[in-house]
């Protein structure tokens, strides 16, 4: 198991429960897609995995170890994260990659860029000049600099056009094929159907379903059915 959640509770600013996960085990390989309507707690679940947020109750484990027993900076280097909007730091693509490791050399940067399907010539490009899709791939490369054991991707294609979306999906699938477990958050079940090897559906802060994508689509549980009914066909 890459991540395990035991009786994890997150509360909102006004004391309401944002997330309550009694028992969740996420497999150590493949593409685990976390779906659900907006506000269901998908991003919160992801941010618990690299301690950008901490639960008020319960334990989150990474490869069997409680996150509180792992140094937080070490944990974050072992669990890469890609955000919804590509975050460009000032400077070139190379400068961006070196934020994760100041000692990174050009040759290593070129290899990382190739892993996400960008030409090595991109190292000298200014990050601000990249298209949305290119910038998001740079962000994936940046997350790979620390040689993580797992990747968290929080709606990484929500600001991209369909073609760039497919490119990112394929790059992510290539990473999972090479042994990198990925947790991918999306509200889009069509995307889930394209990429998921395992599915977790959150509704109102609770795990409403865990299993295959086909199983979720066939579910007649009322909360899930209502969510699926909102999806564009």
């Amino acid at each position: 198991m890459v991540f395990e959640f035991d009786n994890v509770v997150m509360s909102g600013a006004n004391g309401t429960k944002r997330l309550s996960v009694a028992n969740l085990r996420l497999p150590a390989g493949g593409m685990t897609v976390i779906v659900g309507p907006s506000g269901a707690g998908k991003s919160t679940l992801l941010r618990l995995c690299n301690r950008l947020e901490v639960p008020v109750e319960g334990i989150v484990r990474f490869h069997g170890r409680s996150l509180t027993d792992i140094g937080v900076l070490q944990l974050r280097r072992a669990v890469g994260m890609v955000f919804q909007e590509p975050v460009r730091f000032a400077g070139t693509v190379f400068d961006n990659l070196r934020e994760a490791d100041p000692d990174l050399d050009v040759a290593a940067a070129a290899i990382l860029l190739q892993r996400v399907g960008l030409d090595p010539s991109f190292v000298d490009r200014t990050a601000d000049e990249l298209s949305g899709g290119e910038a998001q791939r740079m962000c994936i490369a940046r997350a790979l600099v620390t040689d993580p054991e797992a990747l968290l991707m929080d709606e990484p294609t929500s600001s991209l056009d369909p073609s760039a979306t497919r490119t990112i999906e394929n790059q992510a699938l290539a990473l999972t094929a090479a042994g990198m477990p990925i947790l991918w958050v999306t509200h889009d079940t069509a995307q889930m159907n394209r990429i998921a090897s395992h599915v977790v559906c959150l509704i109102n802060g609770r795990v409403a379903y865990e299993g295959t994508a086909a199983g979720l689509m066939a579910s007649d549980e009322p909360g899930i059915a209502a969510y699926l009914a909102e999806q564009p066909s």
Partner: protein
Amino acid sequence: MTTADVTTVGLIASLLLVAVAITLSASQRLGLERDIIWATVRSLVQLLFVGAILAFVIDPEQPLILSWGWVIAMVAFAGVVVRRRTPEIPALLPLGLLAIGAAAGVTLVVVFGLGVFPLEGRTLVPLAGMMIGNSMNATVLAARRVVDEFREHRAEVEARLALGQSSSQASRRHLRSALRTALTPQIETTKAVGLVFLPGAMTGLILAGVDPIEAVRVQAAIMYLILGSVATTATVMTLGVGKRLFTTDHRLIDLPRPAERS
């Protein structure tokens, strides 16, 4: 030596200008008449009150400890003002007191240690007041700027944290930018001094009949002290607030926007 004695009649005459402001507010329907009257009355009462106490405190017959007590009260008051203007930041009062107190302490040691001014109640209280007042403004500006900077650039800060950077690494460039913003007004003021406006102390001295060259010397010393104390407080404050916005395990705390004021 001609001195600018303001007679009671003169003071009343200056109120004519307040009447102009009230008339303008009424004719333009700004609705500020009551505020203007309240501000005028309040400032007069406050100044008379402070003047009466000050006359007692800085009286050469009184022990200097009274003046020091006044200085400490000013620091405390400034700390409370800073706390009130930046409610989002946890545990800010001690930091504000430390920053303002440190700047006031350092500058006063320089001023009196090096004999720039003689150590008396009538020099200590107004000089400390100027340091503390300017430091207070710089502190509020620095603290507000840091909060706004992190609020605007939350995604960037969290992206750096997610790469395994410590909170101090992830916040470095944002703190630098906030500090630059907080210090710029004082630097600009120092640059424009004399060309655009005559600063308060110098204006006061010249009005009181002091030779302008002497007034310039006093003003220059005060200005450099203010620049120094503003830079000190703004730096202490920026670094301190930067730390307080993160948890010990390198998470950026929630920075909810204060409710919109109508």
